[in-house]
């Protein structure tokens, strides 16, 4: 049982999420051509997605129950770091997933 079983919450969430897709993709297609993207704003926009994804991933990987968890026993952290290394070298998503899952499973069983 978690928040995703509340129908109202999820429906509102979906409507808003769909709007973020429509608004961002539609933005400059729908605005009058006199409106342009200032270069300073464009530079900020370039970094926002990377930072937002980092802000989501980092706490999940490096914390447990609201506290920093930089330990040899943090199996998920090691699996993610190994998978990230594999992806950086090979740029192969399926290989990265397989290595990440395998590392996690092995660490959990034997470490």
């Amino acid at each position, binding site marked *: 049982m978690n*928040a995703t079983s509340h129908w109202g919450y999820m429906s509102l969430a979906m409507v808003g*999420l769909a709007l973020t897709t429509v608004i961002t*993709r539609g*933005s400059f297609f729908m605005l009058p051509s006199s409106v342009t993207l200032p270069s300073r704003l464009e530079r900020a926009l370039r970094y926002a997605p990377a*930072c937002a994804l980092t*802000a989501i991933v*980092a706490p999940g990987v490096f914390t447990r129950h609201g506290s920093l968890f930089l330990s040899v026993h943090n199996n998920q952290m090691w699996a993610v770091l190994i998978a990230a290394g594999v992806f950086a070298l090979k740029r192969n998503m399926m290989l990265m997933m397989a290595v990440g899952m395998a590392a*996690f499973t092995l660490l959990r069983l034997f470490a």
Partner: protein
Amino acid sequence: MAPAGIAIAAWGLVTGVAMVKGGLSVPMALAMTIVVFAGSAQLAVLPLLVSGAPLPIVWATALLVNLRFVIFAAATRSYFSGLPWKQRLFSSYLNGDVGFALFSGRFGNASERGNPYQWGFFYGVATVNWLSWQASSVAGILLAGLAPTDWGLELAAVLALVAVLVPMVRRLPAVLGMIVTGVLAVATVRMPLKLGLVVSVLAGVLVAVLLEPADSSAAVEKQPTQ
């Protein structure tokens, strides 16, 4: 297009599995993939939805992840400005990472912008992208229920986002912005209402922009992910 189609299908499959293993019901995951149609944003908000985060935080996170589409739209608007508004809106909806990457790779330097050949190319790519994304996502959502829970598939969502993040680790301002964001996000993880998320993203973006060399606005980087 064929290699791109396979990459999209792999990514869609993983996203589909991750949504269900991350805690969404099958109907909700199906609704999400069809209505939202933005893989990175879907995966990013997944832990927020599961923990019941306030909706403004959920929406703001998706908006931040989707902001790259604003850059795509600004870069390709001139090819579509001759179309009626309904068709422009429809085209923009299809202008995701793959459509944008392939279209601007092909026509980025075209002197004539906005002819039927370019539109045909765009809709062809966009249709293949949409179909392979939706079909593979639906397959992932339906197959996820069959996989045993002890395969560590909850990890799939994190790994899928890692695949988006790794290519972004390229230039110093971006890397330092991401480090600042990551450290702050970990430090503020106990803040109520997930406000730490917003604070750490704003700080990271600010650091990246301030660290940028003044003349780099010419070297606009496109980041085709999904």
